């Protein structure tokens, strides 16, 4: 008897530990997490890490090549841009903006999307129909096009671009939460909660929502990548952040004129966008493999 209990005890694993065992076996997810942590580190310690101010103009050092090229200057590691700003410092501060952008987009779209998705899935019927038509309407607009429409109404700017991209991102959250909520609604624990007289609000948020977390967490990770990519695209089109903000999308747009003479001005900001987006996509994929019970061994 005694030994039996102990055996059971050693078999038990905390869900988080169980999650980590699966997650850490996924190399892609770990690489993604490493990319993200790297950029978070840059974002948090930007003032300490960047050798110059991102807006400081060096009048006698325009478009210097990176320091490891001929003609480079050791104090400007990645060289300078067309008005003499240190590229490395701007890239580091750009991490701050991109991470902030990703967070805000996800925060806005996930909160609105989760609320609407829970309502659609839990109430069903007319509420569901209405919310799903709203989703259909948003989905009829290709993502960048809808964001452009919103920005053209609200005016260009970083914050408006974030709101626009968050609106675009809502449907995927609504659909994912709705699908899980519809499944959960039929289960017995919801029924039990209902018989105890719990309010709809309580059932939705403290009963159903925790059980929709797995797909929601995956979508949050993917939401970061889509959000960062779309806001950067708007910046590139001149509809997002405005100069002199050190945002990677505008930095790319500004560098277009020097594409043949100074290709590194184009290459580096784009690589930053690629690695951040790739990081969140890798993480999202890894989370899906780990959290989705259907794929579990």
């Amino acid at each position, binding site marked *: 008897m005694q030994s039996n209990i102990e055996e059971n005890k050693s078999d038990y694993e905390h869900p988080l530990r169980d999650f980590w065992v699966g997650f850490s076996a996924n190399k892609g997810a770990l690489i993604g997490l490493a990319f993200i942590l790297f950029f978070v580190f840059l974002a948090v310690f930007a003032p300490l890490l960047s050798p110059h101010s991102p807006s400081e103009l060096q009048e006698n050092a325009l478009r210097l090549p990176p320091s490891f090229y001929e003609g480079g200057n050791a104090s400007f590691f990645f060289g300078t841009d067309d008005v003499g700003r240190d590229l490395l410092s701007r890239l580091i501060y750009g991490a701050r903006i991109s991470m902030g952008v990703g967070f805000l987009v996800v925060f806005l779209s996930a909160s609105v999307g989760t609320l609407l998705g829970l309502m659609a899935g839990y109430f069903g019927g007319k509420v569901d129909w209405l919310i799903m038509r709203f989703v259909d*309407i948003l989905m009829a607009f290709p993502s960048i096009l809808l964001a452009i429409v919103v920005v053209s109404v609200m005016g260009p700017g970083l914050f408006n671009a974030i709101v626009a991209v968050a609106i675009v991102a809502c449907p995927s959250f609504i659909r994912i939460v709705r699908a899980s909520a519809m499944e959960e609604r039929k289960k017995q624990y919801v029924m039990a909660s209902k018989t105890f007289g719990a309010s709809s609000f309580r059932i939705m948020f403290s009963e159903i929502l925790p059980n929709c977390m797995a797909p929601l967490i995956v979508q949050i990770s993917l939401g970061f990548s889509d959000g960062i990519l779309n806001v950067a695209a708007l910046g590139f089109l001149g509809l997002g952040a405005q100069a002199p903000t050190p945002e990677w999308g505008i930095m790319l747009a500004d560098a277009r004129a020097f594409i043949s003479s100074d290709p590194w001005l184009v290459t580096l900001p784009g690589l930053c966008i690629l690695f951040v987006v790739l990081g969140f996509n890798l993480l999202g994929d890894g989370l899906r493999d780990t959290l989705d019970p259907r794929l579990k061994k």
Partner: protein
Amino acid sequence: MLNFLLKRLIDLVPTLLGVSLLAFFVIRLVPGDPVMLMLGERGADPKVYQEMKRELGLDKPILSQYQSFLINSFRGDLGRSLVSKRKVTEEFFGRFPATLELGLCALFFAALIGIPLGILAALKRNSFFDYFLMGGSLVGYSMPIFWWGLILIIIFSVGLGLTPVSGRIDVLYDVPTITGFYLVDTLSPEVLAEEGLAPFISAISHLILPSIAMGTIPLAVLARMTRSSMLEVMGEDYIRTAKAKGLPYKKIVLIHGLRNALIPIITVLGLMFGSIITGAILTETIFSWPGIGKWLVASINARDYPVIQGGVLFIATMVVLINLAVDFVYAVINPKMR
């Protein structure tokens, strides 16, 4: 199945109404006076102001404005561009073939490479090749195409001098508009008689880089989709039966496997129309491709609201109708739906 299709058709009505409302409010939600905004530096001559207000129908009550907007849209009248003074529909259809040609080439490129790679990855599951390919497809999926296009230009146009940087065709050639597709129009008898194959080759060389830039994300999506769809199908009973019958492996993969794996892939291809437009907006801006993407971005910068309104309405309606058509096709080709 009939019920499902009927339900989809009924749901279409509120969706299209919502889309039209959204397009309708593009002009009207702009903070401040839209007419003043559009007149901009041309000054505020009261006569011009009133005239424009009347032309846009902004002097009537909002409900009757929406009513006439709906009726005019149905008649195919989306107003006139403030910049070119031409009809929005005329401008749209003048540019649409360029976007469609580029989009089809991009999808062709994506399918031509993505589907075979996906099949190979599925057949060599968990091999190094499989991991490499799936990692690569995730990189492709994460690609900021506005950067990717510029990198392609740096490598192939600036560095190697292989392809032109921008435009649809060399300015030397004057191609008559027959279909609007340069790949077709440059092969018309009169062009062939006058210039030979040179215009056609020029058109192709202008298409290569934008097609790669625009096709990269669809390629990544298709490769991943094909792989998972193939893996699913290859585990089915009828594949085991085919193997048990001793059919050649190639035949099993290509005929029994691929044909069934293609059903979801075709669906995804159809649903990619929306992302093609997104791709077009960015790709056309980079390569100065004279299609609707570049046109829309230019209109936004010029505050040409009738164009934005009309273009948005057009594209959204097309996306909705194409998605509906894809659902219909899916219902017809997928035996499980019957």
